[in-house]
């Protein structure tokens, strides 16, 4: 008898597009974590006066006299301005060109990955926790608890979300923490609805009834029996939610309400691009491509996960 997890795993890995999505997301997370090592104007490693320094960007060391140094693949900092090389086109000294302040676009996009991935994961993680807890409570206790939580879901769902986010962000200082907080606070309804519906289904099954009769505490039944059987659709919606959160963050940064310069984010690079659209097309083109790749990969991953988790779907290994 194979476990459900190995069943899902083998089905997932027979879906080529899903695996591609997974690999790309893995790569993007890697880029986000190691952005400082990939794009930086300081060497990764250097030897000055016979002493080894690693990683250099944490130490204040004069590496110009280094006898040996390894530079990052993209030897530019996302913050370093250089007015002698403003708005240079791509494929010159700078692979993706420079912006209006002479900063390397590729370095800014690489460091922007960090913002997008962080916002996507933290915001949707928050939403996921809120959604799972509320959905579980509503489905488990039913009755008045369910009515109150369902009403709350309805209210938050009918909010004109972008209006609400804009309103909150206009009054809070626009920084990455507030963005994650706001997206998380408005994005949990989908997860809550799915968990609630699944919990209702599980609640009528015999193993839950028996656990109750045997006197297991509510919290134990909730997490050990109910949640584990009700979480699948929520996990799939979490993956799509991360893609949605990345798009919202980019929109907000594009409107100037998101991540503030000089911190790079795909949305605020695009905003600069929109101001120079008539003669610096590369500033607008490349961040959009980065967003497209990320969102497509997440959507592919989500679809593959959904198909793999649903035993009714026949997977064609094409």
């Amino acid at each position, binding site marked *: 008898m194979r476990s459900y997890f190995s069943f899902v795993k083998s089905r997932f890995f027979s879906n080529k597009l899903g695996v591609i999505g997974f690999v790309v997301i893995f790569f993007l997370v890697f880029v986000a974590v190691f952005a400082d090592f990939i794009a930086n104007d300081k060497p990764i490693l250097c030897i000055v006066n016979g002493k080894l320094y690693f990683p250099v960007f944490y130490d204040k060391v004069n590496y110009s006299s280094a006898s040996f140094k390894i530079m990052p693949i993209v030897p530019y900092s996302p913050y370093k301005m250089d007015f002698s090389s403003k708005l240079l086109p791509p494929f010159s000294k700078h692979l993706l060109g420079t912006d209006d302040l002479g900063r390397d676009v590729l370095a800014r996009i690489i460091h922007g990955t960090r913002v997008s991935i962080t916002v996507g994961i933290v915001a949707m993680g928050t939403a996921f926790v809120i959604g799972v807890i509320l959905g579980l409570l509503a489905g488990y206790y039913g009755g008045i608890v369910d009515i109150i939580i369902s009403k709350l879901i309805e*209210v938050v769902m009918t909010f004109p979300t972008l*209006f609400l986010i804009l309103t*909150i962000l206009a009054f809070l200082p626009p920084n990455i923490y507030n963005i994650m907080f706001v997206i998380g606070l408005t994005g949990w309804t989908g997860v809550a609805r799915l968990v609630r519906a699944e919990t209702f289904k599980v609640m009528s099954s015999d193993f839950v009834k028996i656990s109750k009769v045997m006197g297991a505490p509510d919290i134990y039944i909730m997490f050990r029996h109910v949640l584990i059987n009700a979480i699948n659709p929520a996990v799939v919606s979490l993956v799509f939610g991360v893609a949605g959160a990345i798009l919202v963050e980019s*929109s907000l940064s594009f409107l100037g309400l998101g991540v503030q310069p000089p911190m790079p984010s795909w949305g605020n690079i695009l905003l600069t691009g929109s101001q120079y659209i008539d003669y610096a097309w590369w500033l607008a083109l490349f961040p*959009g491509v980065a*967003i*497209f790749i990320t969102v497509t990969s997440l*959507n592919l991953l989500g679809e593959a996960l959904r198909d793999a988790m649903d035993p009714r779907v026949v997977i064609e290994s094409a």
Partner: protein
Amino acid sequence: MLWYVIKRTILIIPTFIGITLVIFLVVHLAPGDPIRGMIGEMSSKLSPEAYELFKKTYGLDKPILERYIVWLGNFLTFNFGNSFQYGKGVGELILDRLPVTITINIFANLIVLIFGVTIGVLAGIYRGKLFDKVSSVVLFGLYSLFEPWVALMLILVFSINLGIFPIGGFTSINFDQMNFFEKVADVMNHIALPVIVLSYAGIAFVAKIVRTSVIEVSNQEYVKFARALGVDEKTIRRHYILRNSLIPVITIFSTVLPSLIAGSVIIEKIFSLPGIGQLFYSAVFSRDYPVVMGLSAISALLTLISLLIADLLYAVVDPRIRYE
């Protein structure tokens, strides 16, 4: 049925109060001073007495719950208050801006409906065939594109390089001297790109749902039975599959309509269209409470009403659904 309509309509009230109360609290408890925002640079010269007078004039001196109740009462009598920023009535401001937003949204919705349904039905009927495969890939790609980016790329190609469409705005400078047909052509020319940007993701969304629905209906017993009886394929498609598979389109429009209005904030900013989205955007920045509140409340009310209409339409279209 009538009882259901009444019950659902009454249930809108607590939801509406919940939504507006939350927005009201967010707007009024947040830091930032609307009076100083209104007066701008001169605010440091404002005497404490004048400040208090301003507060009193705009009703900002009362406790917050009282202010909410006053606001709600006024809203129900279509009195949305006066804008701090423009000094005009909020209702009047919204009516001024409404035609632009409505025009682009009507065209965008029509395009979504026509293309989304057509592509979805064809892909569902010819599933697994070339058309289905190609359209699936294209639509999947469209769905992942970032709207502001698409808008900028369209401007770059069609406005800057080819010069086919204007770069922004709703009408040309010499609009007033044009005759009727020139006016229509001028507006169409201006809204072509914004409408494309507003509709492409919707097309992908609708097509996907219609395709799934067509496939689901095609597998129903009654379709198989009709085929076994020898009903010809054309009749099966038109009367058995098509009609039933279009039911989900109703739900889509109940959610797409409100989101299109909120979605025009970004589009209107990029194409500098003087619509509701731009009004909201500028109101949020200048802490123009009455405008922010009025637009949020109207938008929430529209959402609730369209959800209700969608539910009722379901019953009209699908006789299997009965409301007790």
